[in-house]
């Protein structure tokens, strides 16, 4: 009971932290904008300098919102996968969902010239890329699921994810051989990951997709708790396993697919954030973990974005590099920890 009061105190802290990081993300960059001016601009007024106003509305605000959506969506998809596959190392990137999305996007960007005119134009649009990306991650997730049904060994699933990664990069290599320099540049830029440069329309599409994925995850909270006991116990508690699994797979594919389509393949956030939530809240209750993962996901992605813009300089680092630098050590640490506690 002591723990639950601690947890209920933690949430306001996390919400406050998310808000602060959100403001900091808008404030910091090559040009520093005072927080006061940001608040003025966001609450309907205008900032005292036109350039600030312009930067906030057209550049920093959309980027911060994207960071929040990306962080939340990827982290929740990681949480769903870790419970579904009973594997603490599962996540959209590790299991190859991002690779699947990449393959879908590579087909569309690099292979659009093969497709007939109108179809080719549609596929390179935001909708086309999102569709291809979701489809790619869905196919990979289905494949991983098939393997996980055959093999009870949970590490095998991770190896399958790795194999998909190599398969994708090989296939992309073949595709690049047949594509123009312009297409290649577009794909390379996409694959480095990028939270900026999204139009408000794209952000709206991303928002709707992430919201749909999150609602499906919210419905799955009770079944996910049952799955903590394993598939057979969950079934004995009246769980419709096939339906639950399908909803979880749809939710993760939409989340990972749409986010990867817009922001590129972003590593480790989906894997590391649910663990941070589990460690801080010391629980497996998915209702608590859902909200904790949402907030931590948003916070960590905002933090990574702040780091990537290297405040005070003109430099912008690729976001994928930052999340990997922070995430990879977390994974190694988890592996070491797993030996001790089994979590």
């Amino acid at each position, binding site marked *: 009971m002591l723990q639950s009061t601690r947890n209920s105190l933690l949430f306001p802290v996390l919400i406050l932290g998310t808000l602060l990081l959100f403001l900091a993300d808008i404030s910091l960059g090559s040009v520093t904008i005072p927080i006061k001016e940001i608040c003025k601009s966001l609450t309907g007024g205008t900032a005292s300098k036109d350039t600030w106003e312009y930067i906030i509305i057209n550049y920093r605000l959309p980027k911060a919102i994207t960071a929040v959506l990306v962080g939340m969506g990827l982290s929740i998809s990681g949480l769903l996968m870790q419970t579904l596959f*009973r594997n*603490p190392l599962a996540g959209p990137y590790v299991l190859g969902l991002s690779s699947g999305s990449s393959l879908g996007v590579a087909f569309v960007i690099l292979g659009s010239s093969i497709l007939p005119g109108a179809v080719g134009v549609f596929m390179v649009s935001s909708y086309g890329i999102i569709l291809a990306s979701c489809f790619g991650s869905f196919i990979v997730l289905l494949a991983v699921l098939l393997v996980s049904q055959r093999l009870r060994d949970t590490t095998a699933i991770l190896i399958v994810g790795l194999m998909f990664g190599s398969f994708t990069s090989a296939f992309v290599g073949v595709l690049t051989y047949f594509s123009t320099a312009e297409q290649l540049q577009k794909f390379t830029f996409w694959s480095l990951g990028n939270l900026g440069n999204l139009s408000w329309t794209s952000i709206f599409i991303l928002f709707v997709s992430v919201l749909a994925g999150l609602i499906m995850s919210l*419905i799955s*909270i*009770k079944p996910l*708790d*049952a799955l*903590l*006991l*394993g598939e*057979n*116990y969950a*079934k*004995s*508690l*009246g*769980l*419709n396993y096939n339906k639950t699994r399908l909803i979880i797979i749809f939710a993760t594919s939409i989340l990972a697919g749409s986010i990867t389509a817009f922001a590129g393949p972003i590593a480790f956030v989906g894997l590391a954030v649910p663990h941070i939530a*589990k460690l801080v809240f*010391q*629980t*497996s*209750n998915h*209702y608590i973990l859902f909200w904790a993962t949402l907030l931590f996901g948003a916070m960590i992605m905002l933090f990574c974005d702040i780091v990537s813009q290297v405040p005070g300089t003109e430099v912008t680092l690729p976001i994928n590099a930052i999340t990997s630098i922070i995430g990879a050590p977390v994974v190694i640490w988890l592996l070491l920890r797993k030996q001790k*506690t*089994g*979590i």
Partner: protein
Amino acid sequence: MTTPILHTEDLSIGYVGKKANNAIASNMNLSLAKGRLIALVGANGIGKSTLLRTITGIQKPLSGNVLLNGNPINSYSALDLAQQLSVVLTEKLPPSNLTVFELVALGRQPYTNWLGTLTDGDLEQVNHALALTQISDLSDKKHYEISDGQLQKVLIARALAQDTPLIILDEPTTHLDLLHKVSLFRLLKKLTQETGKCILFSTHDIDLAIELSDEMIVMTAEKTIQDLPSRLIADGIFDALFKDENIAFDVEKGKFIFKNL
């Protein structure tokens, strides 16, 4: 005799093969009645698990019927079945941070709303289950911090919290030492007497089962019989249990004896 909670009619169990059905056991007429502690015994590989899977509706019978409250078990929805029948399995739990209390509370899932919120009534049931199994003091511990014997009690408490007239346990005494085996059997006995539930469990501890259970279901290669332990002994059923001349059942001692050691 009152109507049993679950009974079978000419039940045949086994696996559907490509050419022919592979029957493991057939013509079983079993009956699980209120307030009875029933032990299921038989040699390894004789089909105990298959029988339990069939009775719990996971696997379809080859022929015959499994009737729960007089209705075919397959006519129940997963949720309705979860309110009639709970299980304790042999499989290991996946890694998680679940506390003992949370684990037992998961037994309330068939009754809770879409978010799994526990009402006061649910909490009462959970606490009652913890008290019956005498593990209330463990409730804040993580499930991986306790011993095998304690974990077995936690899993039984979870089944109790599910509040079903029938509980089925698959080899609950494996991995336990003699002391904990006996105390687990006593617990099961107490639960059938105090709660009026029917408890069916499979076990290899035949001596203990003979002493403590109300009825036994004995599976041999030829037939499956359900009766009182004393009558099974008198009929010499246990001698047929193991097809090995070095193991025999001593009727007077009520124990197995080993020859040529």
